[in-house]
């Protein structure tokens, strides 16, 4: 799993690459939490265009960040869902509580 973070004021754009499963969940969770804590992130934009696989361990990381931000009125937006990843996100109901955008730019615009 590779991770690139881009700080945009209240928003953090995180670009993930690889497979979101139990192997990377712990590391991913703490990397996201520490970046969000440092920057006082309110809106998290997850760019998953490099993610080829997700299972419930990966969903758990996303849902956990959502819960954390939702407490303080924040939000998680999703970008770049490949068909298999979107399939799992839809089935899990995550796409009912988070919006999908076609690019990080649109996601950031949608937050304003």
């Amino acid at each position: 799993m590779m991770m690139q973070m881009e700080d945009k004021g209240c928003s953090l754009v995180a670009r993930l690459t690889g497979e979101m499963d139990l192997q990377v969940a712990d590391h991913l969770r703490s990397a996201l939490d520490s970046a969000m804590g440092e920057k006082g992130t309110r809106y998290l934009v997850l760019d998953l265009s490099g993610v080829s696989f997700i299972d419930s361990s990966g969903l758990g990381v996303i849902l956990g960040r959502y819960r954390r931000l939702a407490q303080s009125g924040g939000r998680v937006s999703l970008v770049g869902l490949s068909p298999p990843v979107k399939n799992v996100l839809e089935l899990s109901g995550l796409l009912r509580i988070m919006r999908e955008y076609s690019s990080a730019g649109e996601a950031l615009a949608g937050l304003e």
Partner: protein
Amino acid sequence: MTDAGRGVVASPDTKAINRMTISLLSQPVNLGLARVAVAAFFSQLDIMVSELEEIKVAVSEAVSNAILHGYLREPDRWITVTAAIYPGWLEIVVEDRGEGFCEADPPPPGSDGHEDGFGMGFALMRSFMDEVVLVSAPGQGTRVVMRKKIRGASMATPENPVAGNC
């Protein structure tokens, strides 16, 4: 642990057309291997890529459960994953010899309260496969049998490759 009875998808006493077993240690680093091996095995079928992706998720859930709940993250225990092709259906069996649970009273998802526990493992397995049978008993380990219907004569052969004009 009782035997996993034949269910909706499978007919009794049918011989597998092809079969493989992979044994791996209970380490998250081996999850990718389990998924890749099962997908590579079933790619001999004339199956849709989207179905292979769903099978990978089901395998990943079952093996993750064995690591987390069966072996409580002990890293040196064995998990076996068997994949088999029958006429008309495919079968995946994931087995651990860990904690197990009471079949009559299956624990609710996320019941062991791990952080961010999503509690969707069995739900995803059930969404992506036609039949999921759990065989477990406390202290006896767990066997998850997953079956999926496939189109009848769907073997890919060198003469009749999945995608090809050979």
